[in-house]
């Protein structure tokens, strides 16, 4: 039943896309389209969440489409339902936001038909139950988002970003295609049901694992394949950026889980190692890069990479546990991963919405031109602050809950028998801890530079609050962040069916625990209660405030800032985004980012100005992407002269081909 509703919602989205295609040029079609998308997403959300919470058994549908002798298989199980919930939350929020935001779009007809198609593609990936349908939906998703990245196509940068993105998307699709090719076998049993039937040999399993890592990782932004992501995500309109970062990367995570946990058969312990290592490195690298960006949306995109890293690390841990038959621990790690995926969808969407609001209010994405927006955009600043706190893993918000679960899972890893894992797990734990601390710094920087301080440009000084729809979307997501953080137990229980189906275990029932605490393993071991912490903090803060205001003075006087006795007029004397990052850059940047500083200090008496130049290198770009591109260019240049030969030389090619074949024939028998 829920499956039918989900499929119908996909169909509805496609219909909306078609209608939008026909009517997009008719002017004010935008709000209508987005409202329709919102409604459909909510319906899909309702259907998926009922299926998930009711823990109902998987349902299947086979449509006579796609590959004729297989047909298009669709299946809705707990895992798919969870990711559908996730996608549709993102979709609903983005649609709500876009009802207002889309008014600022110069060429709406470039967005309207593609946006519903993008949503439909993401939904369909989660529903697909055979390799063909899966990749079909996967590519539709990629293509739609590619075209959406190209909405502002007059900008050279965006075109380049879109190009890199599309090539990487095709690369990931091919990797997954090869993986499915191995799984399906030579006689093409592409239906997932058939694939589940037989487990491949360890060698082939390793091959599939590698391909899945590459394919899903390239789409999700796993280092070192992440380079396209910070180019493409910021280039799209903000509500699309939110979808790409918040929902599409999760669809990639879904692909990894589906292939490795579900299709690949019994888990071996070493499957976890690559995911664990790549995840930890990605987390640290992503957030470090995020700290160095001055473009707001690009910084957010890099922080997406960090969160993907955390998710993959948790997934790797879960694989390792599952391989060693520690089902409960595996379930804990898996829950941590899924929970974090959900949280990331919530706060990253909110953050991109905020960035979009800032963009519409000031027209600037460069943080060095912003500042003091907390006075101009009061509501946005509140929602943005909540999201920043949540993504910085501050209790009692949701980000902390999921990272806390992840750390608890790492604390269980000493029981793993393999030495490599014993050594790897704490190292990754340290990396994740560093990443969390860096993330806090990163978002202090973002919020402090953009919303606090004094405006660094007249646009920022003249900004105005955005429309009610956008605000509603942001506030709603912020509220969800708080809710998921205060009552994590509900989410964990909701996720139980997914873990049952994948690793055959679940975390202990959380609903019955007094005071609504969450207990991963046993209460004596560890427990956390977001609600209680929140009540404590709120109570003590208000008590303190009340007491002081009541018993002591409440007098207040506005005066110029003291600033250690050097009050200065110019806002440019504030700490800038770059200078805020400087200490951290000096500590970490040297190794991770190849950061180099060049100071040209004139000798006393010289009148020329002093110069400071900073170089940052993305190592993956320089050592992975550029060599490949260079190789292709080299080969193309070498081959190109073949277009400019004479007829005689072309004939001689034919001649030599013939002689060669004849010689081969002569030598054959």
């Amino acid at each position, binding site marked *: 039943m829920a499956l039918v509703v989900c499929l119908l919602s996909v169909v509805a989205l496609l219909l909306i896309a078609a209608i939008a295609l026909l009517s997009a040029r008719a002017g004010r079609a935008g709000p209508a389209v987005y409202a329709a998308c919102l409604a459909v997403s909510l319906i899909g959300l309702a259907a998926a969440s009922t299926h998930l919470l009711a823990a109902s058994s998987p349902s299947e549908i086979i449509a006579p489409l796609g590959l004729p002798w297989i047909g298009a298989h669709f299946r809705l199980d707990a895992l798919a339902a969870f990711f559908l919930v996730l996608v549709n939350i993102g979709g609903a929020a983005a649609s709500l936001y876009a009802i207002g935001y889309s008014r600022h779009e110069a060429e709406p007809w470039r967005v309207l038909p593609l946006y519903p198609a993008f949503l439909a593609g993401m939904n369909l990936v989660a529903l697909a139950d055979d390799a063909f349908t899966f990749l079909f939906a996967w590519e539709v998703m990629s293509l739609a988002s590619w075209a959406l990245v190209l909405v502002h196509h007059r900008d050279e940068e965006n075109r380049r970003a879109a190009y890199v993105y599309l090539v990487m998307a095709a690369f990931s699709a091919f990797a997954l295609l090869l993986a499915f090719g191995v799984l399906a076998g030579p006689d093409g049993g592409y239906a997932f049901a058939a694939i589940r039937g037989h487990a491949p040999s360890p060698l082939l399993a390793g091959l599939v694992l590698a391909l899945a890592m590459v394919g899903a990782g390239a789409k999700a932004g796993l280092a070192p394949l992440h380079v396209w992501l910070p180019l493409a995500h910021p280039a799209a309109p903000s509500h699309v950026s939110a979808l790409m970062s918040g929902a599409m990367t999760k669809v990639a995570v879904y692909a990894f889980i589906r292939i490795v946990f579900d299709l690949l058969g019994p888990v071996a312990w070493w499957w976890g190692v690559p995911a664990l290592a790549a995840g930890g490195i990605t987390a640290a690298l992503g957030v470090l890069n995020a700290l160095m960006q001055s473009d707001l949306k690009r910084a957010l995109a890099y922080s997406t990479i960090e969160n993907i890293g955390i998710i993959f690390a948790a997934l790797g841990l879960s694989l390792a546990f599952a391989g060693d038959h520690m089902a409960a621990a595996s379930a804990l790690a898996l829950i941590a991963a899924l929970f974090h995926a959900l949280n990331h969808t919530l706060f990253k969407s909110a953050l991109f919405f905020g960035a979009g609001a800032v963009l519409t209010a000031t027209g600037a994405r460069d943080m060095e031109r912003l500042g003091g927006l907390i006075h101009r955009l009061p509501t946005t600043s509140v929602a943005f602050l909540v999201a920043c706190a949540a993504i910085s893993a501050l209790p009692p918000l949701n980000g902390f809950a999921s990272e806390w679960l992840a750390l608890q899972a790492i604390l269980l890893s000493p029981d793993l028998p393999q030495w490599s894992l014993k050594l790897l797990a704490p190292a990754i734990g340290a990396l994740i801890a560093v990443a969390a601390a860096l993330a806090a710094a990163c978002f202090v920087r973002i919020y402090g530079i953009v919303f606090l301080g004094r405006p660094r440009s007249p646009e920022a000084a003249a900004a105005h609050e955005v429309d009610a729809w956008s605000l509603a979307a942001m506030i709603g997501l912020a509220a969800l962040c708080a809710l998921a953080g205060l009552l994590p137990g509900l989410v964990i229980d909701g996720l139980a069916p997914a873990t049952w189906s994948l690793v055959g275990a679940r975390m202990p029932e959380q609903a019955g625990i007094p005071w609504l605490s969450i207990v991963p393993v046993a209460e004596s071991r560890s427990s956390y209660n977001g609600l209680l912490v929140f009540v404590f903090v709120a109570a003590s803060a208000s008590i303190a405030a009340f007491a002081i205001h009541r018993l002591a003075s409440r007098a207040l006087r506005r005066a110029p800032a003291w600033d250690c006795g050097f009050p200065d007029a110019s806002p440019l004397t504030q700490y800038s985004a770059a200078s805020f990052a400087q200490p951290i850059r000096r500590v970490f940047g040297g190794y991770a980012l190849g950061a180099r500083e060049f100071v040209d200090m004139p000798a006393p008496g010289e009148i020329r100005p002093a110069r400071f130049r900073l170089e940052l290198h993305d190592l993956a770009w320089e050592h992975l992407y550029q060599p490949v591109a260079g190789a292709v260019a080299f080969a193309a240049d070498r081959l190109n002269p073949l*277009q*400019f*030969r*004479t*007829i*005689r*030389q072309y*004939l*001689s090619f*034919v*001649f030599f081909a*013939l*002689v060669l074949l*004849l*010689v081969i*024939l*002569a030598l054959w*028998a």
Partner: protein
Amino acid sequence: MDALAFDLAHLLAGCLVLLSFTMLYQDRLYALLNVFALQAVALSLSVAWQAWIQGAPHLYVTAAIALVFKAIIIPVTLHRVVAKLGIHREVETVVSVGPTMLAGIGLVALSIVVMLRVTVAADPLAREDIAFALSVVLLGLLMMITRRNAVSQVVGFMSIENGLILAAAGAKGMPLVVEISVAFSVLVALIVIGVFLFRIRERFDTVDVAALDRFQGERR
């Protein structure tokens, strides 16, 4: 099938191969054309002989076409072309004659090895014919790729075609030989016309193929 028939057919086929070598050896256009005419004559003779021993009257048509069209019309026309377009008379070679001859010998050896190995089932006469025909084809192609100017390339192509006709005639009882030879003659005729009338002249002051190639698809 008595020995005489076999020997004669063998002899004529061998003549064609020999003449192909002679063509490779030529360095003057007129001489080249004459040798080609000679080869055409040899071809028509051998086809006619095949017609006689196979008792296949339709092959006489092919022989006639070969004689009239390729031994007389085409060479004459090409003489006129050379004269009209004032092509300098010597054949411009890419590879000098010596290596070309060696390569040719290698090709003949190759074709004989290939063909004799594979045609054990066929009767000996056909085997010889096919082997020689293949070597004529290969030599013609060799000529096309080692000669620079269009006339000699056309000649090379026509000698390829001679080889094919030889093979077709040699294949006992093969249908459609006439149609095929006619079709081929059309092809050849078009090539010659292409060189002569068909716009080449009005566009290029030489039929040196290199000049045709100066425009190389795209300007660099």
